[in-house]
């Protein structure tokens, strides 16, 4: 009997809590959000509205919210390790770089780290692929702009290591912003064990990433990934195969020569998509020149 009363009370309290939070805060959000962000959390961070909840990725949750009256990307990190410290360091070092989101605030909340990041209006490159198919000039300009964003990063001895359409935001004016430096590597920091690439990033990985040859990772790894993106945008297809096995097999054989029916892109791809790292463009300047802009 007592147990039944307790259960009924819990249910009533939960229901009241749900109704209050729904009408006060979550009126524009999905039910999922109510289970993630507590009222205390929302109050603590002065969040007035949750606009979107991104799918959970690893130990990171991302919510698009209105905080202090500003639309931001709120990243909640459950495991604080050297990867996140590295990512924050990169954002701090390159905070004046317009092509990389700004970090507005970093706070610990309980055992989690809460990062308020500038929200980039626009869409992921993966959502607007159709706008690039077959448009060589538009693709080469985009890659050129990404290289301009990344140039100071590469010069600072950092490597993104996870360049793919999902990590490139296209603003409404068409300019790109590079996001998610979560697995970027500081080449000067020997204490960090570099990981090849994110498990789900194999379609855009270089041979040295796919074969886990971490000692070969450099800025020229990012060059290769940008080459794959260019090929993917122009043809709608991956250049080396559609499965991890197919791509690995391709990388183990003779170097492929590309002919995708567009001279400037052929030139770029055949310069950049070299399996051997030392054969890729030596400098960022060479990389940009190979785009024939």
């Amino acid at each position: 009997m007592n147990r039944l009363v307790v259960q009924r009370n819990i249910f009533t309290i939960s229901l009241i809590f749900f109704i209050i939070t729904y009408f006060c805060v979550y009126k524009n959000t999905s039910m999922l959000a109510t289970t993630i962000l507590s009222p205390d959390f929302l109050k603590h961070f002065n969040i007035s509205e949750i606009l979107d909840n991104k799918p959970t990725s690893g130990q990171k949750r991302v919510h698009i919210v209105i905080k202090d009256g500003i639309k931001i990307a709120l990243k909640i990190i459950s495991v604080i390790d050297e990867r996140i410290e590295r990512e924050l360091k990169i954002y701090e070092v390159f905070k004046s770089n317009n092509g990389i989101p700004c970090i507005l605030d970093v706070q610990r909340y309980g055992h989690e780290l809460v990062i308020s990041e500038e929200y980039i209006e626009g869409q992921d490159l993966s959502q607007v692929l159709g706008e690039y198919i077959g448009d060589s000039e538009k693709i080469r300009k985009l890659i050129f702009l990404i290289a301009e964003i990344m140039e100071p990063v590469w010069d600072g001895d950092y490597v993104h290591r996870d360049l793919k359409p999902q990590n490139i935001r296209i603003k409404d004016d068409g300019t790109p912003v590079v996001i998610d430096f979560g697995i970027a590597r500081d080449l000067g920091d020997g204490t960090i064990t570099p990981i090849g690439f994110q498990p789900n990033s194999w379609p855009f990985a270089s041979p040295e990433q796919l074969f886990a040859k971490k000692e070969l990772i450099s800025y020229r790894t990012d060059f290769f990934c940008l080459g794959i993106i260019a090929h993917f945008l122009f043809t709608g297809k991956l250049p080396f195969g559609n499965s991890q096995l197919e791509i690995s097999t391709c990388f183990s054989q003779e170097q492929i020569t590309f002919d995708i029916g567009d001279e400037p892109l052929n030139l770029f791809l055949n310069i950049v998509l070299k399996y051997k790292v030392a054969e890729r463009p030596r400098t960022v300047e060479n990389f940009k020149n190979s785009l024939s802009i």
Partner: protein
Amino acid sequence: MKIIHVLGHNAKWNIDSFLEQRIGDGFLITAFTFGKKFMSHKQLNPLLEKCMLDLQFYGKKAKLKAGKLLEFDFHPTNGNPFDVTNVFIHNCIKQAIQFQIDLGFKEIIIPICYESDNCEEIIQNITIINAHVSKNRQEGIKYFLTLPFSFDIIRDQEIVDRILIAATDKKIDFDGYNIVCENKPEQGHKINTDSKLITNLSTVFKTLKYQGFETIYSYANWDAIIYLAQTDIDYITIGSYENLRNFSIKRFTEDISGGASKGYYFSEKLLNMIRAQDIIQIQVNGMIPAIQNEKNIFSDIILATDYIWNIHKPDVNKNYLLSISRLLSKISQIKDIRQRTLHVLFLIQDAIICYKDLDDHYIALAGSESKNYHLESWKMYLLKTIGMKPDEFITTYKKLS
């Protein structure tokens, strides 16, 4: 491409051939042979502006009785063997650079110690010395870092790739690289036909050139032909004696002396050295015209029936210098790389046919180092690089030759 004489044992023939026959474009002075005396060398002193200096740090701390490396105060051989740290070596290298600048050299060869298998050490050297050169660069001077590849390293593709990544990094400020490669030819051979060695050394030359660096192939033998067939090389050395044409680390770590030899005749038609003893049977069988170098006064002299062979005679040494410099110059003048490779393939095929001709005339070279042990390997390797099948090549050869 410039032809550079390696000045070592009996450098007189090299200097003579430069002054009298206009063979070559400059000199590479070897510290082991000359010590500091090159500055007061009567013949060499007026030619110093055409010289580069290899201070030969290869043996690191080895104390040799032979050679004159100890004459250089900053040479690692002068270090206390228990005190030779990386910092010490790097300081030696920095002093070696300054030494050359102070003497007015415009092309500085930066000496590096030989590492038999320590890839990390090589990469660290590239990075540290590059930082020093970047900071202290002087206008009008070209800096060439020596990359001494041990036999084990050059045959290891992964290590070669790592070295090339470091050597072509965006921060590199060297103008080029001085490539030194330990060949270790098989017993009775003068050049190595190991396919891993040929493939990886080709990659070294091609990659460095592609990335905009000047390249020097030091202590090169006539194997330079196949590397030059695939890419431009800016400087190739020619040497009158075998120990100057085959880099061996033993020369810098042990006191060794060369073996006795009557001498060799380099035949452009066979692309090989023919032992003096084998020349006799070629003469007896009336096949001298088949191997004789054209328009080469030294060749004419030494192939005469009454010639008395001796390795120390100028003709024997100058024949090679003239022949190889002509061969290399002609190859380098072909700008289109595919055409250049085909030209060399035609030379190789001519040589294979020439060997067949000697066979048909009962000349037995099989047991001798004068035999053809290298041409098929060269041919197949070069055909692969241009993606041409052997049958297709033979058809082309028959059509055009």
